[in-house]
């Protein structure tokens, strides 16, 4: 078994992920909000204490998730691209190691949402005839370099499928 892939993601990925996780977590607070609305407007049986307790627990969970998960995710992510294959390792609990022969690659693209863009980051998406893989949150120049590298190697390997 060879060693883990050697490149890491951009360190600012952690901050970017924290923001996107935070936004996602906001939706969780719709639960206590809905409960509060029901008890306030309708024939509420729920005591305010219960709702506050639930909110408190959610705040703690969300805080832990926002603080730890992006950090762990960053630590576990590594990738490597050479002329023959793309080697990816990722996962928070379940560690997945993926190997994609470069000549199987059908297309590569980079994409960025508003959060990633504000950090100057981009995802690289690699598609084969069967699967799609993503290297998340690379610095823009790195992402473009990786994309061009893969597409160059893929073109060099002439055969398809």
């Amino acid at each position: 078994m060879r060693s883990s892939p050697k490149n890491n993601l951009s360190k600012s990925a952690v901050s970017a992920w924290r923001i996107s996780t935070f936004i996602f977590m906001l939706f969780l607070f719709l639960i206590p909000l809905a409960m509060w609305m029901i008890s306030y407007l309708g024939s509420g049986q729920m005591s305010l204490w219960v709702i506050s307790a639930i909110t408190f627990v959610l705040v703690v969970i969300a805080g832990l998730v926002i603080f730890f998960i992006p950090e762990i995710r960053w630590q576990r992510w590594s990738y490597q691209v050479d002329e023959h294959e793309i080697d990816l390792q990722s996962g928070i609990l379940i560690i997945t190691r993926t190997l994609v022969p470069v000549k199987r690659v059908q297309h590569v693209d980079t994409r960025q949402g508003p959060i990633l863009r504000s950090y100057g980051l981009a995802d690289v998406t690699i598609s084969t005839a069967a699967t799609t893989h993503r290297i998340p949150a690379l610095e823009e120049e790195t992402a473009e370099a990786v994309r061009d590298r893969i597409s160059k190697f893929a073109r060099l390997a002439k055969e398809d499928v």
Partner: protein
Amino acid sequence: MSKPERQHPVAAITKALDVLRGNFITILLILFIGGGDEDTFLLYWIVGVVVLLLVWGVLSWLRFTFELSEGELRIEHGVFVRKKLYLTSDRIQVIDISAGVIQRMFGLVTVEVKTAGSSSKEAKISALSREKAELLKSELRQAVNGEEEGVDPEDKEKREQKIYSLTTRDLLVTASTSGRMGVALSIVGAAFSQIDQFISDEEIYQFIETNMPQSTSASLVVMSIVSIVVISWLFSFITTLITYYDFSVDVRKNELLISRGLFERIQLTIPFNRIQAVQIKEGLMRQPFGYVTLVIESAGYGEKEGNSTVLFPLINKDKMHGFLEEVLPEYNYEMTQQETVPPKRALRRYLIRTLWWSLPIILIAWITIPYGVYAWILLPLGLLLGYQQYRDAGVCTEDDTLIISARQLSKKTAIVKRYRMQATQLKQNPFQKRMSLRDIIVHVASGNQGRSFSVRDLAIQDAGRYWQWLAMQHQTQPEVQDTPFDQPDAEISSED
């Protein structure tokens, strides 16, 4: 055929039926909910729907034209949004000519043109006279590879010898052991649960009292279970019979031609160089009799069902290798003695995994259904299945071929060429980490999504070894005479 043409008017009817089939459940819902109790009202609804469908069918027939020019098939269609579809003939992978019930009544055929990756729905000319269809096919084919398709008499003679068909006896065995029971069971079960919509409880009680006065509630439960099973078996028997009626595989120079079906004759063409993997399925009910089903995974094209194509529905395990040798010799492999299996310590994980689904089912049945306590039978059955899954998991390599087998319910052995792998993965969750185990997953192209084969809980070094072997594929590059896939050659330019 150089000016735009319309299909045969029958296409209007088939289009209407297609829409009906596609939205069957929606329409049923509208009929039952919107219809209410009044019979006349329901009648209006039905008439309205039929008229609407026919109008839609006629409109789409009017708006559908196709033409063949400069080696390109040009289809224009769409009632409100006009769509133009241009298919260059060198991108066309497969041209299928088939005939449904309606088409057969009028002596017509359906032509489906398929390209890699794209959905084939659009490029379907649903009603055409057979002569025109053949003309279209030959013209498109000619544009692809001129002389190759020119019929060589010697070649033709050779072809005729290589047709494998399913005997009537085997067809009956296939139908009676088909794995469609599960699907059928759920349909029949659902139908049974809806029965009180049509017959009131009193009527049922009355029927039971007059016809079976000495029956107890226990025997009634048993009887209804038995009748559900029997009805679903009949259902699956009949549908399988219809699907695989007159099944034959015609081995040609560059492709396999599979035809089947009782009412709807379906013809599938699979070029050899599109084949990505072969699967040997040993169904629960067939395994004891030594029968297997052969399935092909092919790229960018396949049947709806999981995007794989049945190569042969039923074949004796002993004869299978002879058949493969003649039809697909490069896939004639079997698990060797060097097979790598999950280590002993993995058995525990295989057994525990079955509890994840069996325990909840048992508990729910126990609590909710009368006599649900008998659901505990599932526990030993599940554990037995887990043990079998452990026994049947394995992987080995020979030459440039990977043979990988695993069991969900039925045992599946996949034979995959190394140069066909799209991606390979190793997975490890924290429990597996503690026990030094890993899952290995290989992905091949199949249909539009691809298919994966996996073996769970291999020893960490073994999984790593196979992963490494798959990684070495660039070192042994066989000459693959592939047709380009999706990326036009024009894009392959040297830049550095």
